[in-house]
């Protein structure tokens, strides 16, 4: 996953290749969103204000992102998109930009939002350094997590989408189906799944994706996590 993401980042929009003199530093747009983040939730979410939530990453990996959406139930367009993140400059900026993109011009439909690619966010930001790319990959995932959550909340289970079998960790060759099985087997934490599958042991880069999957399957089979209910 990360391997592919890095290739894509190098292909276009990479700040390093645009201005070698400033290497990892950020574009003006990135800085603007970093210093003046849009749409972040600066208080605890109020009950009833949102009808979907999403989460990705973990502070252990350096990034945790939570999003809250209000989707107009008739048009199924995103009306409100708020977020909180524990993350670096580009995580803050890319999430801020994504929040603008999904709500501008009347809001994206859920189908449109699901198609939002990290590359789209990066283009609007005027590029990100290659090794920062995984950060903006996170916010499109949190968005898709929230879209699934909306369908779960509205009992449209057939519309929930998860990518088909794919290798999550190229080192241990663990796939998302292995993780699904482990969770069904009762391994509902990262540690328990790692004991069974060795996923991400010695390859920390994949841990955000693994945690996201564990949570997805845990909620799918055992219901929403109590502590993070809206």
């Amino acid at each position, binding site marked *: 996953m990360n391997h592919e993401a890095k290739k894509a980042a190098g292909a276009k929009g990479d700040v390093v290749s645009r201005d070698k003199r400033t290497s990892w530093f950020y574009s003006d747009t990135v800085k603007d969103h970093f*210093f003046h983040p849009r749409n972040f939730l600066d208080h605890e979410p109020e009950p009833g204000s949102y009808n979907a939530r999403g989460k990705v990453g973990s502070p252990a990996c350096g990034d945790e992102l939570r999003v809250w959406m209000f989707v107009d139930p008739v048009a199924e367009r995103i009306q409100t998109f708020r977020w*909180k993140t*524990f993350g670096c400059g580009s995580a803050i900026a890319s999430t801020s930009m994504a929040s603008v993109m999904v709500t501008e011009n009347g809001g994206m439909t859920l189908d449109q939002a699901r198609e939002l690619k990290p590359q789209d966010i990066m283009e609007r930001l005027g590029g990100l350094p290659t090794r920062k790319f995984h950060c903006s990959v996170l916010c499109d995932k949190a968005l898709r997590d929230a879209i699934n959550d909306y369908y779960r909340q509205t009992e449209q289970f057939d519309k929930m989408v998860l990518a088909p079998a794919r290798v999550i960790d190229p080192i241990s060759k663990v796939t998302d189906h292995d993780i699904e099985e482990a969770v069904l087997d009762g391994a509902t934490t990262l540690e328990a799944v790692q004991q069974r599958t060795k996923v991400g042991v010695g390859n*920390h880069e994949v841990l955000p994706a693994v945690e996201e999957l564990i949570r997805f399957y845990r909620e799918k089979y055992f219901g929403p996590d109590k502590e993070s209910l809206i």
Partner: protein
Amino acid sequence: MPDVYVDHAATTPLDPRVLEAMMPFLGDAYGNPSSFHMRGKRVKDAVEDAREIVATILGARSDEIVFTSGGTESDNLAVLGYARMHKEQAHHLVSTTIEHHAVLETVRHLNKKEGFEVTEIPVDVDGLVDPEAVVHALCDDTSLVSVMYANNEIGTIEPIAEVGRMIEAWKKEHPKSPLVLHTDACQAAGALLLDVRKLHVDLLTLNGSKIYVPKGVGVLYVRRGVKLMPLQFGGSQEKGLRPGTEHIAGIIGLAKALEIADEEREGEQVRLTLLRDNLIERVLKDIPKTRLNGHPTKRLPNNVNISFMDLEGEALLLYLDAAGIYASTGSACTSASLDPSHVILALGMPYEVAHGSLRFSLGRSTTQKDIDYIVETLPPLVEKLRRISPVRVSEKYYQST
């Protein structure tokens, strides 16, 4: 806008007195010390004078001083050079979990690729190495112990002299052992005594760019009788241990810088300790959910390392940068890997505490006004990032609430 450079542990500016000493060797004194003529000899004499100065400050003999390209090369020459030279005899190396990567990655390379066993000694919550634990790890097969003098990230000063004495005692009971002690003293150079006899070390690393010399020059002290395998081959410079024409101006500058550091050590120690403690005390008092990383008193006079819970260090670093404060972080986001500071993790802290760590390393230019500016600037920036953050770090990890 203020311009507060508090990243002296990364590198220091060039001291004008050092530059002055270097100038002739960037100009008319361009000879190659290996040349057999006056232009060469003049330069050779200057290099040997510099070697004498460095040796005197280290309490060593001048033939024990090897000039290198910097701290990383010195560490590599010490560790690789000694381990490889004695590989027929011994295959075990001992180091600590908080070493600089120049040592840690080197012993790990020897472990992975060259068949050496490596013991990495853990540290306590303040980053202190227990000398007993070091000795406990020794066996007949151990050739080298490498423990840093002071940690570059958290500033903790290790009990090197005690480690050295205990190793000497151990060697008396194991007379056939080839064991030597190496210490990386890059961060200690400006602040602590560097007498190799009192430290009981066989190999010691110094780096010019931490003591107001330009980048690209360092020292390895090699005790007489300690044999190293060179890392590169060529001419007979530095007794064949470091072939290649010397970085003359750097060597001259390094000797001058060590002289200055030696003269000013006591005064700077007192001055910087006051500033350091003032910064630590006020940040911990003014900003809730913070933690001092490293030992409270056994620490470099210029090092302040504080974790700000619930936020990520790179973001804070960028906000400080915009306010004209230049610090550094143990967050993974500024490193090439995705892992945060191995040093803060080695203290037993979770990833999120390491991600939120910030290091302010003070220097000769740092004033009370700078400290005041940092203390005034930090709280609203921390507050803003915490409002954005969904993470709440467990309170068992912070001191100030």
